[in-house]
Each structure stands twice: as C-alpha cells, then as structure tokens.
C-alpha cells in the first residue's frame, strides 16, 4: 500500500463524520506524509498500522473531545488540584474507555424517554383527571359565588317588593332566602379568593421546585 492508497481508503472510512472534521483530519495526514518525506513513507504507513485503525482513532478522538471538555469543566468548577485525575486512562492502550461514560448516560436518558412515552396513556390520563377535578372545583366555587351573590341581591329586591305589594310574611320569607343565598355566595367567593390567591401559587411553587430538584439531581449524577 502506498500513500495515495492509504489516504483514499482513509477518506472512504471517514464518511460518517462531519465534512469539516473529515477535511481537517485528511489535511493533517496529507501534511504528515509530505513532511515525513518519500523516504519515510513506508515507515509512517507501518506505524499508522492501517487506515481502519487510524479512522477509528480519529472518530474516537471526536467523541473524546466531548467527554474531555466535560471533564475539564467539572474539574474547573470543583478544585483545580484534581485536574490530573480527570483523564486517568492509559491514552494509547484504551482510548475506547473515554467514550464510555457519555454512552452510558445517553443510554439512560433514552431509556427514560422510552419509558415515559410508553407509559404516557397512564400518566397523561392521571394528570388529566387531576387537572379536570381542580378546574371542576374552581368552576363550582365560581358558580356558587356568582349565583349566591346575584341571587341574594335579586331576592332582596323581590322581598322588598313583596312587603309593598303582598303581605309581610311573604316578604320576610323571600328576604330570609336572600340572606341564605348571600351567605353561600360570600362564603364561596372567599373560598375562591383563598384558592386562587394562596393555594394555586403554593402548588406552582411546589411543582417548580420539584422539577428543579430532579434536574439538579440528574446533573449531579452526570458529574459523578
């Protein structure tokens, strides 16, 4: 195999990576051969072993970039003193291990997403029912408040009219009803204000902090 054949094979093998990375790597090794000189051509080819091995190391390097940057950020934010332990694998012997943590994490996330999608009929129904019940209760309170207050005031009007046009007992009866309606209406109104003003913000805060905790935990696990 000569340099041209080697480079052509390498170019084919690097099909899978981005155009930019491919050009970068091919330029580098073309340069490398040129700088080594014709007299060293076979020596370089022998040391690079095979286009297959070289393509493998280039691709692993691209994955490693991701983990190495993540490791660097992790050690930066913790203590700089531990930076030496960040990449403690043997570089030439086991480059594969560098890609592993990323793969494990991706596998975990994919599994979680799949489980969430598969079980969606259950939890969507569940969340839907809870939302429905809450909205139902709110609507009922609203209806009671509106009906009670409006009806109460209307009955006051009717009661007064009865006093004037009919007899005292009918008037008192209707006024009594208006009092009860107003009581129910005002009570519902107070409850509604309490729920909207206190309970709902409290629930939203709770949900937000719960989600926040979940994400925080996940981030910590990723670091570990």
């Amino acid at each position: 195999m000569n340099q041209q054949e080697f480079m052509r094979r390498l170019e084919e093998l690097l099909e899978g990576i981005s155009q930019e990375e491919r050009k970068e790597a091919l330029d580098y090794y073309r340069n490398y051969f040129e700088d080594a000189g014709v007299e060293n051509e076979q020596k370089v080819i022998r040391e690079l072993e095979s286009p297959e091995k070289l393509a493998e190391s280039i691709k692993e390097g691209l994955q490693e970039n991701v983990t190495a940057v993540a490791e660097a950020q992790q050690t930066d934010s913790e203590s700089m003193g531990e930076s030496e332990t960040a990449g403690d694998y043997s570089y030439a012997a086991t480059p594969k291990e560098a890609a592993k943590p990323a793969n494990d994490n991706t596998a975990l996330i994919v599994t979680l997403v799949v489980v969430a999608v598969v079980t969606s009929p259950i939890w969507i129904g569940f969340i839907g029912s809870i939302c429905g019940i809450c909205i139902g209760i709110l609507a009922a309170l609203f209806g009671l408040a509106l009906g009670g207050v409006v009806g109460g005031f209307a009955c006051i009007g009717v009661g007064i009219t009865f006093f004037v046009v009919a007899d005292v007992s009918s008037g008192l009866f209707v006024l009594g009803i208006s009092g009860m309606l107003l009581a129910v209406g005002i009570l519902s109104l107070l409850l509604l204000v309490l729920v909207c003003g206190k309970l709902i913000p409290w629930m939203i805060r709770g949900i937000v902090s719960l989600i926040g905790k979940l994400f925080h935990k996940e981030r910590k696990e990723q670091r570990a």
Partner: protein
Amino acid sequence: MVFNTGAALLDAVVLAAVSREEDGTYGYKITQDVRKAIEISESTLYPVLRRLQKNGYLQAYDMECGGRNRRYYKITDIGEQQLEQYRQEWNSYSSKISAMFSGEEIV
C-alpha cells in the same frame, strides 16, 4: 515505558512542545518532539491537537512552505496560562513522587 501517560499529561507535553517554537510548528515535527519525551504512536497526536485547538489552547493556521500549504500550530494566551498551570501541578506532583521514592520527608 511502564508508566501510563494520562490525557492531562499528554495535553501538557504537547502544549509545551508547541510553546517551544515561537514561530509555530507542524504536526510531523510536534510528533517527533513529543516522542523525545514520551512514547506515543503516530496516530495519537492528531486527536490531541484537535482537542487543544477546540479548547482554544492552540491556534492553527496555514502557511505556504516550499510550494504547498502546511498547517501550523501556535500556542494561544490561554494555552500559555493552561501550560503554566500544568507546570505547577507537575512540579508538586513529581516532587512528592520523587520524595516518596527516595525516602525523604514529604511536605
């Protein structure tokens, strides 16, 4: 060599090799220079150079040389800072290991 070269040490050695060349240096020469200090295969260096470049520690540029374009590498300011940090880390690390080997008191 019986001792493994970790990723951080390899980064540090490559940064040092590039920083020695004020006018920049190129892949083949860096490989030969690094090999004076540690054993690496020819395919090891490219991913390291690419990573250091992406982290902003090295700057790459093309220069005409003998009728063809050659890719050169130069250390950046933050690359120098990183190298200085590596130097300090290495000094404390290696002096402790040396002290341990020679039976001296470790400070």
